């Protein structure tokens, strides 16, 4: 966990001065499913991490202080970067799939191109909530199955599609998050999907 992202000051690699357009793709999935590994394998920088806080008025009033209690929720996430060309740069976020995280979705990830749901077949139930939330936010997504060596059952993609009650329109892809070409293939699968969605929208407008 802690070893996944270094806390040391990074050797910053600056963007091209012509960079003008930042784009977002979000990788969501349960605990330890390989989000950071996937981000690292395709990123041109070592993944960095940061956090967002949300302050909420607490219940009731602190009697002794006479002030309203507040609580702060902190959500940590990491990210990597891919310079697509001199002008466009894609940021890839690895985000936890827990409930609290979704309160911050709009503040962090509105305008995102799309999402990758990363699935570990030994813990498929961890993905249900993320899939439900993405559908709720109308964020297009693909499902990438991160194959761990320790998983002996090797469910087929069709079996996984059934287990996740995924519609036929959601692309699925096998991956090994540790391998750059595999991570790249996942991203291409997502953007191909986004492209066909956009094409059918432009065709009907």
């Amino acid at each position: 966990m802690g070893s996944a992202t270094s806390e040391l000051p990074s050797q910053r690699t600056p963007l091209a001065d012509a960079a003008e357009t930042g784009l977002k793709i979000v990788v969501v999935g349960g605990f330890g499913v390989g989000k950071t590994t996937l981000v690292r394998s395709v990123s041109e920088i070592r993944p960095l991490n940061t956090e967002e806080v949300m302050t909420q008025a607490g219940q009731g009033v602190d009697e002794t202080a006479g002030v309203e209690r507040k609580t702060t929720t902190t959500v940590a996430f990491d990210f990597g970067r891919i310079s697509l060309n001199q002008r466009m740069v894609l940021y890839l976020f690895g985000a936890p799939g827990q409930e609290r995280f979704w309160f911050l979705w709009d503040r962090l990830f509105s305008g995102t191109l799309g999402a990758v749901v990363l699935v570990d077949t030994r813990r498929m139930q961890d993905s249900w909530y993320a899939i439900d939330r993405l559908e709720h936010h109308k964020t297009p997504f693909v499902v990438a199955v991160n194959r761990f060596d320790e998983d002996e059952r090797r469910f087929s993609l069709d079996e996984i599609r059934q287990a996740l009650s995924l519609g036929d329109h959601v692309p699925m892809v096998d991956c090994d998050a540790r391998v750059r070409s595999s991570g790249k293939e996942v991203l291409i699968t997502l953007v191909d999907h986004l492209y066909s969605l956009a094409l059918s929208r432009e065709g009907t407008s």
Partner: protein
Amino acid sequence: MTRKPVDIGDPDRLYTVTGGRSEADDSFDLVTLIVSECEPTPGMQSEHARILELCRHPAALVEISAELKLPITVVRILLGDLHAMGRVSARHPRAARSVAALPETALLQEVLHGLRNL
């Protein structure tokens, strides 16, 4: 800074660098690219100075947040100050003329092209 995925704690320590303000300007996206328009000056708030140094070349808001180890909200407030003073400029996602006019399909084709060249 805590690194647990989700953590509940005391809010007040966070906002000392913003003079107590906790409401951020949401016009800065996580991937809005920030560019310095001047050099840091002596006596400037240290966080402002660090941002001006970091943004000699374009840097996304989220990179500034990671480098300064400050939450997104706090960085949004700091950037709002610097922007209001004309000390940084902001390149918002898809605001660039070369992209704003593009249909979604053309934009995505550029993304695909970039990814295939990885």
